[in-house]
């Protein structure tokens, strides 16, 4: 019985898979008319044949071949170029700031950071041009302190751009404005210049930091105030 039923079912399936050419065998069609599975498959083929590919829109590429990829690529290129220009601008601005700022902020240099004393020393040259460079250079080569005069300034100039930017924001800024007035008090630092020369040989940077930091903080504040009050 099962065999009988399955035969028309299989025959109908085979007819469908073959593309439903002509008419199905009569017994198969009779079976299919009462078989849900067969009828749903007939509906599937009907749905497929009802598709109308002519209703598709024209491909966009017909009007402008490869328009989208080219547009995307050009946008990408423009973005990269803009990013490059921005990067260059940022680097340029940063470099100009670095090069411009070291001179005023230099006096405030000495700070807690390890390189700070060196920078502070390089900055101090404002007060005494000859001696403070020796302190900065001494950090690099302590033994060479004997002939400090000529090579040091050259070294001093390149250094500030390297280290200054990190330190400045922390402490030195406040002292920087005070620096003009301390420049008058820099004369005490000239007393400090006397000290560096001995300290230059032993340990220049700590000694330099130790002495200058207290002296500017203590002396500058009183010194400016007295001068205005008399006036």
């Amino acid at each position, binding site marked *: 019985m099962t065999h009988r039923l399955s035969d028309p079912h299989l025959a109908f399936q085979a007819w469908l898979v073959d593309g439903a050419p002509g008419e199905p065998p009569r017994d198969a069609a009779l079976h299919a008319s009462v078989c849900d599975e067969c009828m749903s498959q007939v509906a599937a083929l009907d749905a*497929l044949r009802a598709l109308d*590919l002519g209703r598709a829109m024209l491909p966009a590429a*017909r009007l402008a*071949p490869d328009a989208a990829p080219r547009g995307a690529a050009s946008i990408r290129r423009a973005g990269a170029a803009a990013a490059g220009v921005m990067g260059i601008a940022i680097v340029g601005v940063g470099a100009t700031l670095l090069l411009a700022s070291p001179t005023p902020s230099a006096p405030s240099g000495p700070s807690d950071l390890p390189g700070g004393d060196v920078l502070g020393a390089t900055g101090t040259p404002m007060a005494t041009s000859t001696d403070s460079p020796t302190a900065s250079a001494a950090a690099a080569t302590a033994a060479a302190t004997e002939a400090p005069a000529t090579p040091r300034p050259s070294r001093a100039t390149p250094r500030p751009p390297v280290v200054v930017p990190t330190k400045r924001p922390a402490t030195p800024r406040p002292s920087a404005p005070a620096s003009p007035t301390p420049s008058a008090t820099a004369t005490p630092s000239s007393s400090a210049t006397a000290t560096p020369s001995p300290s230059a040989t032993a340990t220049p940077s700590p000694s330099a930091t130790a002495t200058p930091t207290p002296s500017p903080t203590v002396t500058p504040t009183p010194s400016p105030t007295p001068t205005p009050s008399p006036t």
Partner: protein
Amino acid sequence: MPTPPDDDLLRTAFRDVHATRLNGFTLLVALGDRRRAAATAGQAIAEGTQRVHDLRHPERAAAWLRAKVLQSLRRGKRIEAPSLDALRTLGVNEPLLAGLSGLSLMQRAAIVAASVECFAEADVETILDATPIGARRMVATARTRYLAAFAIADRATLGSGPLTDRVLMVAARGFVPPAARTARST
């Protein structure tokens, strides 16, 4: 003496004849990926217009274009997410899309070429770049899988279309009501 038609005119005519249906074929095979279909079909049309003198026969040209599209799609990355939006205009519904999604790219191309566009066997072979036996087998496998997937996706819908009508007509022709049967026997 008749002058040969202008090449530009030939190219324009070639595009007008083939572009829309080729895009529909590509959309179906690419499961509704508009951008990819447009790019692929556009490229095939552009190549076809360069060989417009060799592709004068419309059906051979259509098969050649579909073969080109299929080659491009096979080279590209796999189509993963079917999109019904672009396919609705063609008449695709959810169960049909489910049936097509269960097929491979080649099987989709085979069933669309054979059952939707009704290409001749030779053209299906061209499209699939297969031997006659290979193409026939591919189409049969695609139909079997599509029918099964469609039936799973949509059990409730009873067909209403030319094929359904034909089957029911044949079934009715062979049907002999019991009353008539007894009357005949007596």
